[in-house]
C-alpha cells in the first residue's frame, strides 16, 4: 500500500516546554486516519508540521513520498486543510468567499454551488459571513478546502461545535470523499466519531504516540477478557471469559437465573483513559 504521509522519529518543540517526541507512523493512501488526543496533546502542531506551517527539529517527514524539505508551496495544490486557525472574509457572503478561493485555485466557478450543497450551505449562500454561526463558518472553510478536490485532506476537529445533525452530514461527506479516493487525516476529541469513521487511529498524549492501529484491533488488544451478567435477583456479576467462568454461566443458565449477558469490550474512550490515565478534556 502506498503511503501518503510517512513520519519517522519526528521531533519538534516550541520555546515553551511542550514538545512532540519521536513520532513515527504512516498514513496510507485512501484511508481515513484518526489522530486522537486530549486538548494540548499536539494534534494541531502535528498538522502544522505536515502542512509546512511549522518546521520540525528532527526526524524525517515525507508527503507523497517526497521529503517535506524538498517540497515547495505547489504541494498545496494536492492538499486541502481545515484548521481552527484558517478563516474567511467577513465582509463577503458565503458564495463570494468560495468564488474568490475558486479564482485563487484556478477552479471553475461552476463547482461552487455543488460544494455548497455538499456542506449544506447552499440555501444560506447569500448570507454575509458576519451574520452566520461558528459552525457555519467552519463549514465555509471546509468548503474552501474542498474546491480543488485535494488528494489529501487535513481536517482539524471538523465537527467540534456542530450540532448532531450537521455532524452527521459532515461524517457522510467525509465517507463520500474517501469513496472518491481522498486520503483523510482527521483529528478529534470525539472517540465515537473516530470509531465510526476511521480505518486506523493513533492516540497521542503529551506529544507522544501511545497507540496506533484500527479501532477494532485496539479495542480487542485492550479487551478485559470479562463478561458482565445480570442475574434473576438483579445482581450484576462480572465473570472471566475462561472455562471456569463459562461453567459458572452455564450453571446460572440451568438454574434459569440468567437475565442478560454483556461482553465487556471497551470502547475507544475506555482504552484511551486506561492508556493515559487522564480524563478526556
Amino acid at each position, binding site marked *: 500500500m502506498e503511503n501518503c504521509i510517512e513520519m519517522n522519529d519526528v521531533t519538534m518543540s516550541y520555546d515553551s516546554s511542550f514538545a512532540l517526541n519521536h513520532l513515527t507512523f504512516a498514513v496510507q493512501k485512501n484511508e481515513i486516519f484518526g489522530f486522537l488526543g486530549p486538548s494540548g496533546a499536539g494534534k494541531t502542531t502535528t498538522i502544522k508540521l505536515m502542512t509546512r506551517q511549522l518546521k520540525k527539529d528532527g526526524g524525517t517527514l515525507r508527503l507523497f513520498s517526497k521529503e517535506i524539505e524538498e517540497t515547495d*508551496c505547489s504541494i498545496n495544490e494536492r492538499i486541502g486543510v481545515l484548521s481552527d486557525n484558517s478563516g474567511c472574509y467577513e465582509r463577503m457572503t458565503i458564495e463570494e468567499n468560495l468564488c474568490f478561493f475558486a479564482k485563487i485555485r484556478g477552479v471553475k466557478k461552476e463547482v461552487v454551488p455543488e460544494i455548497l450543497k455538499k456542506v449544506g450551505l447552499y440555501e444560506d449562500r447569500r448570507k454575509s459571513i458576519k451574520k452566520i454561526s461558528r459552525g457555519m463558518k467552519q463549514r465555509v472553510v471546509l468548503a*474552501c478546502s474542498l474546491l480543488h478536490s485535494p488528494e489529501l485532506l487535513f481536517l482539524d476537529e471538523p465537527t467540534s461545535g456542530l450540532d448532531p445533525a450537521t455532524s452527521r452530514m459532515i461524517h457522510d461527506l467525509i465517507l463520500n470523499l474517501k469513496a472518491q479516493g481522498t486520503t483523510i487525516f482527521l483529528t478529534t476529541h470525539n472517540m465515537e466519531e473516530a470509531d465510526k469513521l476511521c480505518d486506523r487511529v493513533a492516540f497521542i498524549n503529551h506529544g507522544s504516540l501511545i497507540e496506533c492501529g484500527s479501532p477494532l484491533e485496539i479495542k480487542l488488544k485492550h479487551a478485559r477478557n470479562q463478561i458482565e451478567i445480570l442475574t434473576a435477583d438483579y445482581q450484576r456479576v462480572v465473570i472471566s471469559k475462561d472455562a471456569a467462568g463459562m461453567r459458572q454461566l452455564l450453571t446460572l443458565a440451568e438454574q434459569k437465573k440468567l437475565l442478560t449477558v454483556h461482553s465487556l469490550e471497551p470502547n475507544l474512550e475506555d482504552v484511551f483513559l486506561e492508556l493515559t490515565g487522564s480524563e478526556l478534556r
Partner: protein
Amino acid sequence: MNKTYRKVKAIYQKEMVDMIKNVNALIMFALPLVFAVLYSKVMPIQEALGADWLLMLTVALNLCMAPLSLLPMIIAEEKEKNTLRTLMLSNVSAMEFIGGKVLAVYTATELINLLLFILIGVAWSQLSIFLLVTSLGSICLLVIGAVFGLLARDQMSTGLYSVTGMLLFLLPTVFSSFNSFFSSLSKIIPTAVIFRLFTMMVQGEGNWIDWVSNLAVLLIWTFCSLIVFKWIFKRKGIDR
C-alpha cells in the same frame, strides 16, 4: 507566471470591491477630499495660500492615508482574521498576497489624487505630470506601508506605525514654509519632495542638481524600504 498573474488578479479584484465595503477605508479616502472641498469651496484659504499649496497638503494627506495607513491595516486584518492562513494554504505566496494589495491600494490612491486634482481645479495641462509625480511618491510610500504591514500583528497595532509615519511625512510637508526646521526636514521627506518635483516640472525651473537630488531622495527611500522589507520578511516571514 500564469498562475501568479491569476492569483494576484484575484486578490486585486477582491480588494477593490472590499475597499468600498470597508468603512475604515472609506473614511481614509474621504478625509483628503473633505479637506479639498472645505479649503477650496467653503473657506477660501486657497486664495491666500494658492492652489498648489492646497494640492500639496491634500495629496500628502492622501499618501499618508491610503499607502501608509490603509495598506498595513488590510494586511494586518488578514493576519488577525486568519484569512492569510487560508490564502497561504491555497498556494498563495507572500509576494503574490502583498502584490495584489499594493496594486489595489495604488489604484485607489491615484484615483483619489485625480479627484483632488479636479476638485482643486489645477490646469488640465499639468495632469500628466501630476500623475507621474504622485505615482512615484505613492510607490515609495506603498513600500513603507508594506513594511508596517509586516511588522503589525493586528489592526490595532498598525495604528502605532501609521501615526508615526504620518507625523514624519505630513508635518514637515505642511509646515515647511512656516518653520526652518521643518523646511530643512522637508527636503528629505518623500511627500514634500514630490511637490518640489511637480513645481519644477510645471514651471520649468530648477537645474539638474535639483532634479537629481529630489529624485534621489525618492529612490533612496524606496530602495531602503525595499531592503528593510526583505530583511524583515526573511527574519519574520509574514505571519509569525
